[in-house]
Protein backbone atom coordinates (compact mmCIF):
# COMPACT_ATOMS: atom_id res chain seq x y z
CA UNK A 1 0.00 0.00 0.00
CA UNK A 2 2.71 2.43 0.89
CA UNK A 3 4.64 1.47 -2.23
CA UNK A 4 2.07 3.28 -4.35
CA UNK A 5 2.99 6.58 -2.73
CA UNK A 6 6.38 7.33 -4.25
CA UNK A 7 8.55 10.29 -3.66
CA UNK A 8 8.91 12.43 -6.73
CA UNK A 9 11.89 11.37 -8.77
CA UNK A 10 13.66 13.19 -11.52
CA UNK A 11 14.20 11.95 -15.06
CA UNK A 12 17.57 10.36 -14.41
CA UNK A 13 16.24 8.38 -11.48
CA UNK A 14 13.27 7.21 -13.51
CA UNK A 15 15.49 5.98 -16.29
CA UNK A 16 17.83 4.24 -13.91
CA UNK A 17 14.93 2.50 -12.23
CA UNK A 18 13.34 1.29 -15.41
CA UNK A 19 16.47 0.45 -17.33
CA UNK A 20 17.65 -2.12 -14.84
CA UNK A 21 21.12 -2.96 -13.75
CA UNK A 22 23.84 -5.01 -15.33
CA UNK A 23 23.11 -8.67 -14.85
CA UNK A 24 25.40 -10.62 -12.56
CA UNK A 25 24.23 -14.05 -13.61
CA UNK A 26 27.59 -15.04 -15.04
CA UNK A 27 29.63 -13.70 -12.21
CA UNK A 28 31.07 -17.08 -11.26
CA UNK A 29 29.70 -20.22 -12.92
CA UNK A 30 31.93 -22.40 -10.75
CA UNK A 31 30.12 -21.75 -7.51
CA UNK A 32 26.58 -20.92 -8.59
CA UNK A 33 24.25 -23.55 -10.04
CA UNK A 34 23.75 -23.70 -13.80
CA UNK A 35 21.14 -21.08 -14.76
CA UNK A 36 20.96 -20.21 -11.11
CA UNK A 37 23.42 -17.37 -10.92
CA UNK A 38 22.43 -14.27 -8.97
CA UNK A 39 19.97 -12.30 -11.07
CA UNK A 40 18.57 -8.88 -10.31
CA UNK A 41 17.13 -8.67 -6.84
CA UNK A 42 18.68 -11.89 -5.55
CA UNK A 43 20.09 -12.17 -2.06
CA UNK A 44 22.97 -14.58 -1.50
CA UNK A 45 23.94 -15.62 2.02
CA UNK A 46 27.51 -16.82 2.60
CA UNK A 47 27.52 -18.95 5.72
CA UNK A 48 30.41 -20.71 7.39
CA UNK A 49 32.80 -21.01 10.30
CA UNK A 50 35.78 -18.77 10.63
CA UNK A 51 38.64 -19.47 8.29
CA UNK A 52 36.54 -21.20 5.65
CA UNK A 53 37.15 -18.79 2.80
CA UNK A 54 34.03 -16.60 2.80
CA UNK A 55 35.93 -13.32 2.68
CA UNK A 56 38.29 -14.59 -0.02
CA UNK A 57 35.32 -15.60 -2.16
CA UNK A 58 33.80 -12.16 -1.65
CA UNK A 59 37.01 -10.49 -2.79
CA UNK A 60 37.07 -12.74 -5.85
CA UNK A 61 33.49 -11.81 -6.77
CA UNK A 62 33.99 -8.10 -6.07
CA UNK A 63 37.07 -8.01 -8.28
CA UNK A 64 35.13 -9.70 -11.04
CA UNK A 65 32.61 -6.89 -10.81
CA UNK A 66 34.95 -3.90 -10.71
CA UNK A 67 37.41 -4.98 -13.39
CA UNK A 68 37.03 -3.48 -16.87
CA UNK A 69 35.34 -5.55 -19.54
CA UNK A 70 38.51 -6.11 -21.54
CA UNK A 71 40.02 -7.93 -18.56
CA UNK A 72 37.03 -10.17 -18.11
CA UNK A 73 35.17 -8.04 -15.59
CA UNK A 74 31.66 -6.63 -15.53
CA UNK A 75 32.34 -2.94 -14.78
CA UNK A 76 29.68 -2.88 -12.10
CA UNK A 77 30.01 -0.52 -9.13
CA UNK A 78 29.96 -2.14 -5.71
CA UNK A 79 29.08 -0.82 -2.25
CA UNK A 80 30.77 -2.74 0.56
CA UNK A 81 29.32 -2.36 4.04
CA UNK A 82 31.91 -3.50 6.55
CA UNK A 83 30.30 -4.29 9.88
CA UNK A 84 33.20 -5.75 11.81
CA UNK A 85 36.25 -3.92 10.47
CA UNK A 86 37.26 -7.02 8.62
CA UNK A 87 37.84 -5.54 5.18
CA UNK A 88 41.43 -5.87 4.03
CA UNK A 89 41.97 -3.41 1.20
CA UNK A 90 45.62 -4.35 0.78
CA UNK A 91 44.72 -7.98 0.16
CA UNK A 92 42.01 -6.95 -2.32
CA UNK A 93 44.46 -4.77 -4.21
CA UNK A 94 47.11 -7.47 -4.35
CA UNK A 95 44.61 -9.91 -5.89
CA UNK A 96 43.42 -7.19 -8.28
CA UNK A 97 46.95 -6.41 -9.42
CA UNK A 98 47.61 -10.10 -10.00
CA UNK A 99 44.48 -10.45 -12.10
CA UNK A 100 45.11 -7.32 -14.16
CA UNK A 101 48.70 -8.38 -14.78
CA UNK A 102 47.81 -11.85 -15.99
CA UNK A 103 45.06 -10.62 -18.27
CA UNK A 104 47.17 -7.91 -19.81
CA UNK A 105 49.88 -10.34 -20.84
CA UNK A 106 47.67 -11.45 -23.70
CA UNK A 107 46.13 -8.11 -24.55
CA UNK A 108 47.52 -4.73 -25.39
CA UNK A 109 48.50 -2.88 -22.27
CA UNK A 110 49.68 0.35 -23.81
CA UNK A 111 46.79 2.49 -22.62
CA UNK A 112 47.64 3.21 -19.06
CA UNK A 113 49.98 2.46 -16.20
CA UNK A 114 49.09 -0.52 -14.02
CA UNK A 115 48.58 1.84 -11.08
CA UNK A 116 46.13 3.92 -13.02
CA UNK A 117 44.17 0.81 -13.95
CA UNK A 118 44.03 -0.30 -10.32
CA UNK A 119 42.78 3.16 -9.37
CA UNK A 120 40.10 3.18 -12.01
CA UNK A 121 38.88 -0.19 -10.75
CA UNK A 122 38.93 0.98 -7.16
CA UNK A 123 36.84 4.00 -8.05
CA UNK A 124 33.98 1.60 -8.68
CA UNK A 125 34.15 0.37 -5.09
CA UNK A 126 32.89 2.30 -2.05
CA UNK A 127 33.40 1.11 1.49
CA UNK A 128 31.26 2.03 4.52
CA UNK A 129 32.05 1.08 8.11
CA UNK A 130 29.10 0.55 10.46
CA UNK A 131 29.51 -0.02 14.13
CA UNK A 132 25.98 -0.96 15.19
CA UNK A 133 22.82 -2.36 13.68
CA UNK A 134 21.11 1.02 14.11
CA UNK A 135 23.85 2.62 12.06
CA UNK A 136 23.37 -0.08 9.41
CA UNK A 137 19.68 0.75 9.19
CA UNK A 138 20.29 4.48 8.88
CA UNK A 139 23.10 3.94 6.37
CA UNK A 140 20.84 1.80 4.19
CA UNK A 141 18.26 4.60 4.20
CA UNK A 142 20.97 7.04 3.18
CA UNK A 143 22.25 4.71 0.48
CA UNK A 144 18.80 4.52 -1.08
CA UNK A 145 19.52 7.84 -2.74
CA UNK A 146 22.84 6.54 -4.04
CA UNK A 147 21.16 3.50 -5.56
CA UNK A 148 18.51 5.53 -7.29
CA UNK A 149 20.95 7.99 -8.78
CA UNK A 150 23.68 5.58 -9.90
CA UNK A 151 22.49 2.96 -12.36
CA UNK A 152 25.94 1.41 -12.57
CA UNK A 153 25.66 0.30 -8.93
CA UNK A 154 24.67 -3.32 -9.13
CA UNK A 155 26.01 -5.04 -6.04
CA UNK A 156 25.69 -4.46 -2.32
CA UNK A 157 27.93 -6.52 -0.07
CA UNK A 158 27.35 -6.68 3.70
CA UNK A 159 30.13 -8.28 5.73
CA UNK A 160 28.85 -9.51 8.02
CA UNK A 161 25.21 -9.06 8.79
CA UNK A 162 25.40 -11.21 11.91
CA UNK A 163 28.08 -9.13 13.67
CA UNK A 164 25.68 -7.53 16.12
CA UNK A 165 23.55 -10.55 16.80
CA UNK A 166 24.59 -10.94 20.43
CA UNK A 167 24.61 -7.23 21.20
CA UNK A 168 21.08 -6.85 19.81
CA UNK A 169 19.88 -9.91 21.68
CA UNK A 170 21.08 -8.47 24.93
CA UNK A 171 19.78 -4.98 24.26
CA UNK A 172 16.37 -6.30 23.39
CA UNK A 173 15.74 -7.67 26.83
CA UNK A 174 13.39 -10.57 27.21
CA UNK A 175 11.22 -10.17 24.15
CA UNK A 176 12.42 -11.84 20.95
CA UNK A 177 10.58 -9.29 18.85
CA UNK A 178 12.54 -6.46 20.45
CA UNK A 179 15.79 -8.33 20.05
CA UNK A 180 15.23 -8.86 16.37
CA UNK A 181 13.70 -5.46 15.66
CA UNK A 182 16.75 -3.80 14.14
CA UNK A 183 17.66 -6.69 11.90
CA UNK A 184 14.04 -7.11 10.87
CA UNK A 185 13.86 -3.47 9.81
CA UNK A 186 17.13 -3.85 7.90
CA UNK A 187 15.82 -6.96 6.17
CA UNK A 188 12.59 -5.20 5.20
CA UNK A 189 14.53 -2.25 3.87
CA UNK A 190 16.85 -4.53 1.90
CA UNK A 191 13.79 -6.24 0.47
CA UNK A 192 12.44 -2.92 -0.71
CA UNK A 193 15.78 -1.86 -2.18
CA UNK A 194 16.25 -5.07 -4.11
CA UNK A 195 12.73 -4.99 -5.51
CA UNK A 196 12.76 -1.33 -6.47
CA UNK A 197 16.27 -1.08 -7.86
CA UNK A 198 17.14 -4.63 -8.84
CA UNK A 199 20.47 -4.76 -7.03
CA UNK A 200 22.08 -8.02 -5.98
CA UNK A 201 22.93 -8.42 -2.30
CA UNK A 202 25.70 -10.62 -0.93
CA UNK A 203 25.80 -10.99 2.86
CA UNK A 204 28.06 -13.11 5.02
CA UNK A 205 26.93 -14.63 8.28
CA UNK A 206 29.15 -16.26 10.83
CA UNK A 207 28.26 -19.81 11.79
CA UNK A 208 27.95 -19.60 15.52
CA UNK A 209 25.03 -21.86 16.26
CA UNK A 210 25.54 -25.55 16.45
CA UNK A 211 22.88 -27.73 14.89
CA UNK A 212 22.24 -30.12 17.74
CA UNK A 213 20.23 -33.09 16.55
CA UNK A 214 18.04 -33.42 19.59
CA UNK A 215 17.93 -29.90 20.93
CA UNK A 216 17.71 -27.24 18.25
CA UNK A 217 17.26 -24.39 20.64
CA UNK A 218 20.53 -24.53 22.49
CA UNK A 219 23.24 -22.13 21.32
CA UNK A 220 26.82 -23.20 21.44
CA UNK A 221 28.31 -22.93 24.89
CA UNK A 222 31.87 -21.75 24.53
CA UNK A 223 34.60 -23.35 26.53
CA UNK A 224 32.66 -26.44 27.56
CA UNK A 225 34.49 -29.14 25.73
CA UNK A 226 32.88 -31.95 27.66
CA UNK A 227 29.42 -31.28 26.25
CA UNK A 228 30.70 -31.04 22.70
CA UNK A 229 31.89 -34.63 22.84
CA UNK A 230 28.34 -35.84 23.28
CA UNK A 231 27.31 -34.50 19.90
CA UNK A 232 28.44 -35.47 16.45
CA UNK A 233 31.93 -34.48 15.45
CA UNK A 234 32.34 -31.23 13.59
CA UNK A 235 33.25 -32.98 10.36
CA UNK A 236 29.69 -33.20 9.14
CA UNK A 237 28.74 -30.18 7.13
CA UNK A 238 25.38 -29.74 8.81
CA UNK A 239 26.92 -29.22 12.18
CA UNK A 240 27.18 -25.45 12.12
CA UNK A 241 24.66 -24.35 9.57
CA UNK A 242 21.69 -23.63 11.77
CA UNK A 243 20.06 -20.43 10.59
CA UNK A 244 19.68 -18.14 13.54
CA UNK A 245 18.93 -14.71 12.16
CA UNK A 246 15.40 -13.39 12.19
CA UNK A 247 12.65 -14.75 9.93
CA UNK A 248 12.42 -11.54 7.93
CA UNK A 249 16.02 -12.05 6.79
CA UNK A 250 15.54 -15.75 6.03
CA UNK A 251 12.53 -14.93 3.86
CA UNK A 252 14.48 -12.72 1.49
CA UNK A 253 17.48 -15.03 1.02
CA UNK A 254 17.38 -16.65 -2.41
CA UNK A 255 20.74 -18.44 -2.49
CA UNK A 256 22.57 -19.97 0.44
CA UNK A 257 26.23 -20.95 0.30
CA UNK A 258 27.78 -23.08 2.98
CA UNK A 259 31.53 -22.93 3.33
CA UNK A 260 33.50 -25.70 4.98
CA UNK A 261 37.08 -26.78 5.23
CA UNK A 262 37.65 -29.87 3.21
CA UNK A 263 40.85 -31.83 3.24
CA UNK A 264 44.49 -30.85 3.07
CA UNK A 265 45.85 -31.61 -0.40
CA UNK A 266 49.09 -33.44 -1.15
CA UNK A 267 51.12 -30.25 -1.32
CA UNK A 268 49.92 -29.18 2.14
CA UNK A 269 47.35 -26.70 0.90
CA UNK A 270 44.01 -26.44 2.58
CA UNK A 271 41.12 -27.13 0.24
CA UNK A 272 37.79 -25.45 0.96
CA UNK A 273 34.39 -26.41 -0.33
CA UNK A 274 31.17 -24.55 -0.99
CA UNK A 275 27.70 -25.98 -1.30
CA UNK A 276 25.20 -23.65 -2.96
CA UNK A 277 21.46 -24.11 -2.72
CA UNK A 278 18.92 -21.76 -4.18
CA UNK A 279 15.17 -21.47 -4.16
CA UNK A 280 15.03 -21.52 -7.94
CA UNK A 281 16.96 -24.67 -8.69
CA UNK A 282 16.87 -28.10 -7.19
CA UNK A 283 19.89 -29.82 -5.76
CA UNK A 284 23.14 -28.58 -4.42
CA UNK A 285 26.03 -27.18 -6.47
CA UNK A 286 29.31 -28.12 -4.86
CA UNK A 287 32.71 -26.73 -5.59
CA UNK A 288 36.23 -27.00 -4.24
CA UNK A 289 38.80 -24.23 -4.15
CA UNK A 290 42.15 -23.29 -2.74
CA UNK A 291 43.38 -19.91 -1.62
CA UNK A 292 46.62 -18.82 -3.26
CA UNK A 293 48.58 -15.57 -3.56
CA UNK A 294 46.47 -14.32 -6.43
CA UNK A 295 43.11 -15.14 -4.96
CA UNK A 296 41.03 -18.25 -5.42
CA UNK A 297 41.91 -21.21 -7.56
CA UNK A 298 39.10 -23.61 -8.32
CA UNK A 299 39.89 -27.29 -8.16
CA UNK A 300 38.08 -29.19 -10.90
CA UNK A 301 36.69 -32.30 -9.37
CA UNK A 302 34.47 -33.89 -12.02
Amino acid at each position, binding site marked *: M*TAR*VRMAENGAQLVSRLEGRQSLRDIEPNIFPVDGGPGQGDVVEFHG*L*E*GTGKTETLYHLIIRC*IMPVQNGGLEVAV*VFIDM*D*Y*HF*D*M*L*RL*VSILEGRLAEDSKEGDSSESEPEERV*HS*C*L*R*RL*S*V*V*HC*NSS*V*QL*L*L*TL*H*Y*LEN*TFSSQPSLGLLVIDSIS*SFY*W*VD*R*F*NGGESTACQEA*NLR*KCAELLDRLRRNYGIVIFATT*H*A*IMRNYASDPGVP*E*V*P*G*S*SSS*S*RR*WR*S*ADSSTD*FDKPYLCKAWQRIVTHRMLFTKNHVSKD*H*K*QVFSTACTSIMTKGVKRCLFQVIEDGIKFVCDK
Partner: protein
Amino acid sequence: MVILREGICPGINEEFIKALQSEDIKTVEDFVSCNPEELAQKCSLSYKALVAVRRVLLTQYTAFPVSGADLYEELLSSTAILSTGNPSLDKLLDSGLYTGEITELTGSPGSGKTQVCFSVAVNISHELKKTVLYIDTKGSMCANRLLQMLQTKTPNMEEQMEALQKIKVFRVFDVFSLLACLQHLRSNGLQKASVGGGSVKALMVDSVSAVLSSLLGGKQNEGMSLLMQVAGELKMIAKDFNITVLVTNHVTRDGNGHLKAGLGQSWSHVPRTRLLLQRVEDAETSSLRTATLTKSSRQVCHLVEEFDLCHWSEERRTSISGKRKLEERSKP
Protein backbone atom coordinates in the same frame (compact mmCIF):
# COMPACT_ATOMS: atom_id res chain seq x y z
CA MET B 1 18.84 2.95 19.62
CA VAL B 2 18.96 6.69 19.50
CA ILE B 3 16.07 8.38 21.33
CA LEU B 4 14.57 11.46 19.75
CA ARG B 5 15.11 14.41 22.04
CA GLU B 6 14.87 18.12 21.76
CA GLY B 7 17.96 19.64 20.36
CA ILE B 8 19.63 16.64 18.79
CA CYS B 9 19.27 18.48 15.56
CA PRO B 10 17.99 21.91 14.52
CA GLY B 11 14.32 21.85 13.79
CA ILE B 12 13.36 19.44 16.53
CA ASN B 13 11.58 21.18 19.35
CA GLU B 14 9.21 20.18 22.11
CA GLU B 15 6.03 20.15 20.03
CA PHE B 16 7.74 18.25 17.24
CA ILE B 17 8.64 15.51 19.68
CA LYS B 18 5.15 15.47 21.17
CA ALA B 19 3.52 15.17 17.75
CA LEU B 20 5.77 12.26 16.86
CA GLN B 21 5.19 10.53 20.16
CA SER B 22 1.47 10.57 19.49
CA GLU B 23 2.27 8.42 16.47
CA ASP B 24 4.42 6.15 18.64
CA ILE B 25 7.70 7.29 17.12
CA LYS B 26 10.32 7.64 19.82
CA THR B 27 13.63 6.80 18.22
CA VAL B 28 15.60 8.05 15.26
CA GLU B 29 15.37 4.75 13.45
CA ASP B 30 11.55 4.67 13.77
CA PHE B 31 11.41 8.19 12.39
CA VAL B 32 13.67 7.48 9.46
CA SER B 33 11.81 4.28 8.59
CA CYS B 34 8.50 6.12 8.22
CA ASN B 35 7.37 7.68 5.02
CA PRO B 36 7.27 11.49 5.49
CA GLU B 37 4.19 11.92 3.30
CA GLU B 38 2.12 9.56 5.41
CA LEU B 39 3.44 11.08 8.59
CA ALA B 40 2.54 14.58 7.43
CA GLN B 41 -1.02 13.41 6.85
CA LYS B 42 -1.35 11.70 10.21
CA CYS B 43 0.09 14.31 12.51
CA SER B 44 0.11 18.07 12.42
CA LEU B 45 3.65 18.59 11.15
CA SER B 46 4.49 20.00 7.77
CA TYR B 47 5.92 17.74 5.08
CA LYS B 48 8.78 20.12 4.42
CA ALA B 49 9.84 20.18 8.06
CA LEU B 50 9.74 16.39 8.23
CA VAL B 51 11.83 15.95 5.12
CA ALA B 52 14.37 18.51 6.31
CA VAL B 53 14.72 16.92 9.74
CA ARG B 54 14.99 13.47 8.18
CA ARG B 55 17.80 14.65 5.95
CA VAL B 56 19.70 16.25 8.83
CA LEU B 57 19.32 13.19 11.05
CA LEU B 58 20.52 10.89 8.31
CA THR B 59 23.55 13.07 7.72
CA GLN B 60 24.35 13.10 11.41
CA TYR B 61 24.00 9.43 12.18
CA THR B 62 24.97 7.48 9.13
CA ALA B 63 28.37 6.27 8.20
CA PHE B 64 29.65 7.70 4.95
CA PRO B 65 30.93 5.67 2.03
CA VAL B 66 34.57 6.17 1.16
CA SER B 67 35.78 5.52 -2.33
CA GLY B 68 37.99 2.47 -2.65
CA ALA B 69 40.78 4.45 -4.27
CA ASP B 70 40.95 6.95 -1.38
CA LEU B 71 40.83 4.18 1.19
CA TYR B 72 43.69 2.41 -0.53
CA GLU B 73 45.85 5.54 -0.61
CA GLU B 74 45.19 6.14 3.06
CA LEU B 75 46.06 2.59 4.01
CA LEU B 76 49.25 2.61 1.98
CA SER B 77 50.48 5.63 3.85
CA SER B 78 49.42 4.59 7.31
CA THR B 79 49.80 0.83 7.63
CA ALA B 80 52.97 -0.24 9.35
CA ILE B 81 54.44 -3.61 10.23
CA LEU B 82 56.02 -3.87 13.68
CA SER B 83 58.67 -6.50 14.05
CA THR B 84 58.36 -8.67 17.14
CA GLY B 85 62.13 -8.86 17.49
CA ASN B 86 62.16 -12.62 17.10
CA PRO B 87 62.98 -13.83 13.57
CA SER B 88 60.95 -17.05 13.89
CA LEU B 89 57.79 -15.24 14.94
CA ASP B 90 58.32 -12.62 12.27
CA LYS B 91 58.49 -15.36 9.68
CA LEU B 92 55.18 -16.76 10.83
CA LEU B 93 53.52 -13.37 10.96
CA ASP B 94 54.76 -12.39 7.49
CA SER B 95 57.40 -9.96 8.78
CA GLY B 96 55.64 -8.79 11.94
CA LEU B 97 52.51 -7.44 13.57
CA TYR B 98 50.39 -5.42 11.17
CA THR B 99 48.73 -2.22 12.36
CA GLY B 100 44.97 -2.07 12.08
CA GLU B 101 44.57 -5.73 13.03
CA ILE B 102 44.10 -7.94 16.02
CA THR B 103 46.60 -10.78 16.52
CA GLU B 104 45.88 -13.50 19.05
CA LEU B 105 48.27 -15.66 21.04
CA THR B 106 46.76 -18.84 22.44
CA GLY B 107 48.32 -21.48 24.57
CA SER B 108 47.93 -23.50 27.73
CA PRO B 109 49.19 -22.11 31.02
CA GLY B 110 52.95 -21.83 31.06
CA SER B 111 53.29 -21.84 27.31
CA GLY B 112 54.84 -18.40 27.32
CA LYS B 113 52.10 -16.04 26.19
CA THR B 114 52.86 -13.37 28.77
CA GLN B 115 56.61 -13.67 28.16
CA VAL B 116 56.07 -13.21 24.44
CA CYS B 117 53.96 -10.12 25.18
CA PHE B 118 56.74 -8.72 27.37
CA SER B 119 59.38 -9.40 24.73
CA VAL B 120 57.33 -7.78 22.00
CA ALA B 121 56.59 -4.76 24.22
CA VAL B 122 60.28 -4.35 25.06
CA ASN B 123 61.19 -4.61 21.38
CA ILE B 124 58.67 -1.98 20.36
CA SER B 125 59.59 0.44 23.10
CA HIS B 126 63.36 0.04 22.84
CA GLU B 127 64.14 -0.75 19.20
CA LEU B 128 61.25 0.98 17.48
CA LYS B 129 60.95 3.73 20.13
CA LYS B 130 57.16 3.67 20.15
CA THR B 131 54.74 3.70 23.07
CA VAL B 132 53.00 0.49 24.08
CA LEU B 133 49.74 0.36 26.04
CA TYR B 134 49.60 -2.79 28.13
CA ILE B 135 46.31 -3.81 29.72
CA ASP B 136 46.97 -6.37 32.42
CA THR B 137 43.98 -8.40 33.58
CA LYS B 138 45.76 -11.17 35.40
CA GLY B 139 48.18 -9.26 37.58
CA SER B 140 51.09 -10.87 35.77
CA MET B 141 52.83 -7.67 34.71
CA CYS B 142 56.22 -7.60 36.33
CA ALA B 143 58.37 -4.55 35.81
CA ASN B 144 61.47 -6.39 37.03
CA ARG B 145 61.17 -8.87 34.22
CA LEU B 146 60.90 -6.03 31.69
CA LEU B 147 64.01 -4.48 33.19
CA GLN B 148 65.86 -7.79 32.92
CA MET B 149 64.97 -8.04 29.25
CA LEU B 150 66.10 -4.47 28.64
CA GLN B 151 69.36 -5.07 30.46
CA THR B 152 70.24 -7.82 28.01
CA LYS B 153 69.67 -5.36 25.17
CA THR B 154 71.56 -2.36 26.45
CA PRO B 155 73.74 -1.60 29.49
CA ASN B 156 72.85 2.08 29.42
CA MET B 157 70.59 2.94 32.38
CA GLU B 158 69.07 5.94 30.69
CA GLU B 159 68.01 4.02 27.65
CA GLN B 160 66.52 1.34 29.85
CA MET B 161 64.47 3.90 31.76
CA GLU B 162 63.34 5.57 28.57
CA ALA B 163 62.14 2.29 27.16
CA LEU B 164 60.35 1.37 30.40
CA GLN B 165 58.59 4.72 30.39
CA LYS B 166 57.21 3.98 26.97
CA ILE B 167 55.29 0.97 28.28
CA LYS B 168 52.09 2.18 29.97
CA VAL B 169 50.34 -0.38 32.13
CA PHE B 170 46.62 -0.38 32.93
CA ARG B 171 45.33 -2.84 35.49
CA VAL B 172 41.75 -3.97 35.05
CA PHE B 173 40.22 -7.03 36.59
CA ASP B 174 36.68 -7.20 35.24
CA VAL B 175 35.02 -6.68 31.92
CA PHE B 176 33.30 -3.40 32.81
CA SER B 177 36.57 -1.72 33.77
CA LEU B 178 38.10 -3.13 30.59
CA LEU B 179 35.33 -1.61 28.49
CA ALA B 180 35.63 1.69 30.38
CA CYS B 181 39.39 1.72 29.86
CA LEU B 182 39.07 1.02 26.13
CA GLN B 183 36.35 3.60 25.66
CA HIS B 184 38.35 6.17 27.57
CA LEU B 185 41.38 5.51 25.38
CA ARG B 186 39.30 5.75 22.26
CA SER B 187 37.46 8.93 23.12
CA ASN B 188 40.36 10.91 24.54
CA GLY B 189 42.61 10.01 21.67
CA LEU B 190 45.64 7.91 22.14
CA GLN B 191 47.94 10.86 21.65
CA LYS B 192 47.47 11.80 25.26
CA ALA B 193 48.88 8.47 26.26
CA SER B 194 51.96 8.75 24.11
CA VAL B 195 55.20 9.37 25.88
CA GLY B 196 58.30 11.29 24.90
CA GLY B 197 57.69 11.72 21.21
CA GLY B 198 56.96 8.07 20.50
CA SER B 199 53.42 7.68 19.26
CA VAL B 200 51.31 4.76 20.42
CA LYS B 201 51.69 1.86 18.06
CA ALA B 202 50.63 -1.17 20.06
CA LEU B 203 47.94 -2.20 22.50
CA MET B 204 48.24 -5.48 24.36
CA VAL B 205 45.55 -7.14 26.41
CA ASP B 206 46.81 -9.95 28.62
CA SER B 207 44.57 -11.78 28.81
CA VAL B 208 41.19 -11.21 27.29
CA SER B 209 39.85 -14.57 28.33
CA ALA B 210 40.52 -13.93 32.01
CA VAL B 211 37.77 -11.31 32.12
CA LEU B 212 35.39 -12.87 29.59
CA SER B 213 35.36 -16.61 30.15
CA SER B 214 33.64 -16.34 33.51
CA LEU B 215 30.69 -14.59 31.87
CA LEU B 216 30.01 -17.13 29.19
CA GLY B 217 27.98 -20.26 29.36
CA GLY B 218 24.42 -20.90 30.33
CA LYS B 219 21.60 -19.13 28.59
CA GLN B 220 22.32 -15.53 29.49
CA ASN B 221 23.02 -13.20 26.62
CA GLU B 222 24.92 -10.63 28.60
CA GLY B 223 28.22 -12.46 28.42
CA MET B 224 28.13 -12.81 24.65
CA SER B 225 27.06 -9.23 24.22
CA LEU B 226 29.94 -7.97 26.39
CA LEU B 227 32.35 -10.20 24.46
CA MET B 228 31.22 -8.67 21.17
CA GLN B 229 31.43 -5.17 22.63
CA VAL B 230 35.02 -5.74 23.73
CA ALA B 231 35.77 -7.09 20.25
CA GLY B 232 34.16 -4.03 18.67
CA GLU B 233 36.16 -1.61 20.83
CA LEU B 234 39.45 -3.37 20.11
CA LYS B 235 38.78 -3.35 16.40
CA MET B 236 37.79 0.28 16.33
CA ILE B 237 40.90 1.28 18.24
CA ALA B 238 43.07 -0.78 15.92
CA LYS B 239 41.58 0.68 12.77
CA ASP B 240 40.98 4.28 13.76
CA PHE B 241 44.34 4.86 15.41
CA ASN B 242 46.38 2.56 13.18
CA ILE B 243 47.86 0.49 15.94
CA THR B 244 48.35 -3.20 16.32
CA VAL B 245 46.40 -5.08 18.96
CA LEU B 246 47.83 -8.22 20.54
CA VAL B 247 45.59 -10.31 22.80
CA THR B 248 46.15 -13.55 24.65
CA ASN B 249 43.61 -16.29 25.09
CA HIS B 250 43.47 -19.69 26.73
CA VAL B 251 42.92 -23.02 24.95
CA THR B 252 40.33 -25.77 25.19
CA ARG B 253 39.98 -29.07 23.39
CA ASP B 254 37.39 -29.62 20.70
CA GLY B 255 35.41 -32.78 20.00
CA ASN B 256 38.35 -34.48 18.29
CA GLY B 257 40.76 -33.70 21.07
CA HIS B 258 42.62 -30.99 19.17
CA LEU B 259 43.56 -27.76 20.84
CA LYS B 260 41.52 -24.74 19.88
CA ALA B 261 41.31 -21.19 21.15
CA GLY B 262 38.99 -20.45 24.03
CA LEU B 263 35.98 -18.13 24.18
CA GLY B 264 34.03 -20.01 21.54
CA GLN B 265 32.94 -19.54 17.95
CA SER B 266 31.86 -15.94 18.18
CA TRP B 267 35.26 -14.76 19.40
CA SER B 268 37.08 -16.92 16.83
CA HIS B 269 36.00 -14.57 14.04
CA VAL B 270 37.54 -11.55 15.77
CA PRO B 271 41.34 -11.84 15.43
CA ARG B 272 42.90 -11.71 11.99
CA THR B 273 45.88 -13.89 12.87
CA ARG B 274 46.25 -16.54 15.53
CA LEU B 275 49.35 -18.26 16.91
CA LEU B 276 49.29 -21.32 19.14
CA LEU B 277 52.21 -21.53 21.57
CA GLN B 278 53.31 -24.85 22.96
CA ARG B 279 56.16 -26.21 25.02
CA VAL B 280 58.72 -28.38 23.30
CA GLU B 281 58.85 -31.85 24.80
CA ASP B 282 62.20 -33.20 25.95
CA ALA B 283 64.02 -29.97 25.29
CA GLU B 284 67.46 -29.38 26.72
CA THR B 285 66.43 -26.03 28.10
CA SER B 286 63.01 -25.28 29.41
CA SER B 287 62.67 -22.04 27.51
CA LEU B 288 62.04 -23.54 24.08
CA ARG B 289 58.62 -23.03 22.57
CA THR B 290 56.93 -23.75 19.26
CA ALA B 291 54.53 -21.37 17.60
CA THR B 292 51.97 -22.70 15.13
CA LEU B 293 50.09 -20.40 12.80
CA THR B 294 46.46 -21.46 13.08
CA LYS B 295 44.72 -18.58 11.38
CA SER B 296 46.15 -16.18 8.87
CA SER B 297 44.97 -14.25 5.87
CA ARG B 298 48.48 -13.95 4.44
CA GLN B 299 50.26 -17.23 4.92
CA VAL B 300 49.54 -20.90 4.58
CA CYS B 301 48.25 -22.20 7.88
CA HIS B 302 49.87 -24.72 10.18
CA LEU B 303 53.40 -23.44 9.70
CA VAL B 304 55.45 -24.19 12.79
CA GLU B 305 58.49 -22.35 14.06
CA GLU B 306 60.56 -22.97 17.13
CA PHE B 307 61.93 -20.20 19.27
CA ASP B 308 63.64 -19.61 22.59
CA LEU B 309 62.09 -17.31 25.14
CA CYS B 310 65.45 -16.48 26.64
CA HIS B 311 67.28 -15.71 23.44
CA TRP B 312 64.70 -13.57 21.78
CA SER B 313 66.60 -11.96 18.93
CA GLU B 314 68.47 -15.03 17.81
CA GLU B 315 67.55 -16.97 14.75
CA ARG B 316 66.79 -20.47 15.84
CA ARG B 317 67.71 -23.27 13.54
CA THR B 318 65.84 -26.44 14.38
CA SER B 319 68.38 -29.18 14.75
CA ILE B 320 67.38 -32.57 13.45
CA SER B 321 70.25 -34.57 14.78
CA GLY B 322 73.01 -34.02 17.25
CA LYS B 323 73.10 -31.91 20.30
CA ARG B 324 73.29 -28.18 20.46
CA LYS B 325 75.28 -26.54 23.14
CA LEU B 326 73.37 -23.56 24.39
CA GLU B 327 75.04 -21.13 26.67
CA GLU B 328 73.00 -20.25 29.62
CA ARG B 329 73.10 -16.52 29.77
CA SER B 330 73.63 -15.51 33.35
CA LYS B 331 70.75 -13.39 34.45
CA PRO B 332 71.98 -10.19 36.04
